[in-house]
């Protein structure tokens, strides 16, 4: 067991996990209550605009997770560290979960706002490509049966796939798009301060929720690695 595994063990032993899950629960519930009952309605879109406070934080969390995969993959290719590989696989799984939420909440909002669940808009298409790339990453890991060559191939894919993230960010600037740019609009546009605060709270809550999911998934990945190593050492003997 590495010091990191001992740290994970003490995380569970001290029941810190239950405290963290409870805090994440309170955070997300608090954010949702604020979104539904204490944030003004959008003048044009009404109630449906409230999905924005979940859609955007999920998108930001997705980018954070995939940036983590990108960094961990680079470290893995340089050091062949098992911890870096576990980090990358765990972050990719949690990232795909949040990316799926983005792709679900987006069309729900798009139907009343644009009149269609889906259009092949630049931002929508590049986000769908991102999701497909990371689902492919997870499939590659599964199909390569966690072999060393499979891990290397997955790390390369994890790095290349991340190049789509800046393209998503810039897609509304580089090309014409119907997707709104709420946070980088021209002066005089953008969010009402109260809506901005709600967005901040929601982002904080979702980042914390993401952290909890990541810790749980990473702990599971470490447990799997430890069992595999112990089994291999027993077979050698």
């Amino acid at each position, binding site marked *: 067991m590495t010091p990191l595994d001992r740290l994970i063990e003490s995380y569970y*032993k001290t029941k810190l996990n239950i405290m963290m899950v409870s805090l994440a629960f309170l955070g997300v519930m608090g954010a949702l209550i604020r979104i539904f009952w204490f944030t003004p309605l959008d003048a044009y879109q009404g109630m449906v605009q409230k999905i924005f406070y979940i859609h955007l934080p999920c998108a930001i969390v997705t980018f954070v997770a995939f940036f983590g995969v990108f960094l961990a993959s680079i470290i893995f290719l340089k050091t062949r560290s098992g911890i870096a590989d576990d980090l990358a696989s765990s972050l990719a799984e949690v990232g795909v979960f949040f990316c799926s939420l983005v792709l679900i909440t987006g069309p729900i909002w798009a139907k009343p706002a644009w009149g269609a669940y889906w259009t092949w808009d630049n931002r929508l298409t590049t986000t769908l490509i991102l999701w497909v790339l990371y689902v492919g990453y997870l499939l590659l890991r599964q199909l390569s049966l966690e072999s060393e060559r499979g891990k290397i191939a997955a790390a390369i894919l994890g790095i290349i796939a991340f190049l789509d993230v800046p393209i998503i960010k810039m897609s509304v600037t580089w090309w014409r798009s119907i997707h709104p740019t709420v946070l980088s609009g021209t002066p005089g546009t953008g969010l009402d301060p109260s809506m901005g605060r709600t967005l901040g709270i929601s982002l904080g809550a979702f980042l914390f929720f993401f952290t909890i999911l990541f810790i*749980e998934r990473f702990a599971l990945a470490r447990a799997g690695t430890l069992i595999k190593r112990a089994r291999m050492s*027993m077979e050698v003997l």
Partner: protein
Amino acid sequence: MEYLAIAYLILWGTLFVYLGRLSAKNGELFKNLRILVEYWDEQASKDSPQGR
């Protein structure tokens, strides 16, 4: 709309209950893992040429 918001809160609440149970199971796994790793280490040291 109010009912929809409450249903949505309940959905998230249910998800967190599930997450809490999952986390508790992960805790159990790590507790058992410690026992397993110690057992394996013991066996490995017994079976090694120095241990025999």
